[in-house]
């Protein structure tokens, strides 16, 4: 995928994010994450039933990379088992941190494979994943 296509997909997820809005429903576990190096501030909520992410939503005030990555993340993790989700999260984190990763497991998240070139953006891209990781850790 060329840079232009990636940029367009990021922009689309930034301007028209999916799964935005946290439901007022106690069956969702919610975690807030703030980026220590900048001001991204997002909530992620997930409904986990029988070891599977049945639904996942996000909301918050964040930059284009963080907001769009949250949107794409919810698309990629919805319906996955916790085991599958953890593998995706690990691969994604490795991609951002320039470590070996399996791109086949990442789907649309591959559009962030050049974020490492802008170090100040790395934390923005990682923030939504740290939220869902906290939720998964809390149920396991």
């Amino acid at each position, binding site marked *: 995928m060329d840079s232009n296509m990636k*940029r367009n997909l990021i922009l689309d997820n930034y301007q028209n994010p999916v799964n935005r809005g946290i439901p007022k429903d106690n069956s969702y576990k919610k975690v807030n994450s703030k980026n220590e190096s900048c001001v991204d501030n997002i909530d992620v909520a997930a409904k986990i039933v029988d070891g599977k992410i049945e639904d996942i939503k996000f909301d918050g005030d*964040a930059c284009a*990379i963080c907001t769009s990555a949250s949107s794409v993340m919810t698309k990629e993790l919805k319906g996955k088992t916790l085991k599958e989700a953890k593998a995706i999260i690990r691969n994604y984190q490795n991609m951002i941190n320039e470590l070996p990763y399996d791109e086949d497991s990442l789907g649309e998240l591959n559009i962030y494979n050049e974020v490492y070139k*802008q170090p100040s953006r790395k934390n923005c891209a990682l923030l939504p994943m740290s939220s869902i990781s906290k939720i998964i850790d809390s149920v396991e």
Partner: protein
Amino acid sequence: MLNREDFEILNDGLIYFDNAATTMKPRCVVDSIVEYYTKYTANAHRGDYDNSLRVDKKYEGVREKVKNFINADSVKEIIFTKGSTESFNMIIFGFMSVYLKKGDEVLLTKGEHASNVLPWLNLSKKIGFNIKYIELDENYRVTLDAVKKNISDKTKVISLAHITNAIGDVRPIEEIGKLCLENDILFVLDATQSIGHLKIDVKKYNISFMGFSAHKMLGPTGVGVLYGKEEILENLVPIEYGGGMNTAFSSDGYYEIKSLPARLEAGTRNIAGVIGMGSAIDYLTSVGMDKIHNYEMELKKYLINRMKSIPNIKLYNEDNDSGVLLFNVGNYFSQDVAIYLNQFKICIRAGNHCAKMLHEVICSSNTCRVSLYLYNNKEEIDKLVDALMNQDKILDTLV
């Protein structure tokens, strides 16, 4: 611009508009630090040889310079610290921890920097004094009426920034100082954002304690000043104990500590930093604080006029008498704008500027901030405006 040639970091097209975060250093400041490290390195107050005596003279000479710069009464009132944060922690944990009692009131505002909020919050939990926030007006400013309204017979301290780093409003400190004098209230001033921009007179403003950092006034990082009126500072209990601050100690538990200012300067201080700060004070004095302020105001006026020509721009604090301007461009997130401007070597700050309670007052918690200083010029402002005119390019830097 004033003296731009003294700042060689600006020679390669760097446009530095983040002066509220830190400032560039003129050659003379760097030279004074290099000279200490290459010509006469020694500890202060320790030796009987030439270099050590030269260090003493330089180090104590800076105390005299600071005293004159802020019009203090005595060099005993000037303590060298790591910077504003340490100064405020010393004031609050070394003095206020003894001075304040349960039920007393301390007045702050929601526009204060973290270092003038967090130590208070921490201590108030231990002692039980109350923190009240003076309401800001519609332009996020502190008015004298709002201060008066909040003063009660329980008010013991008012602790405010002279200029806030996020809003850039200049507080009416002379009048607030007078109110404090009339009501027997201690006045603590955070001069971090003003020390390099406005003339400060601690006596005229009736300041009890004050803190500032050298790096915001053309000096090096890691050094700053705690000022305290002598009779009050005498009661500030040292937080740090060790070399240089004691006169005697013995195994039976006896120890005796030195008089001011040495009592509050335990351990080897940042000698090179202090010398660099002295050089920065000389530099600012030679340019002239009034001249610096007037030039900044001229630039600010130009900045506002030019920024107003940008479509979808929102300016938050255009009426303030400082070189700080907050803005947002359309619905773009402030950090995206800052990263976009970086490709033109334009440095601005995005975020909440360490004043994290301010979003309770200002509608947008995240803003872009331009903060000016003497070496900025109109051509740089033109380049900023040109870049912001091409708003549709802001998100091109995503990949």
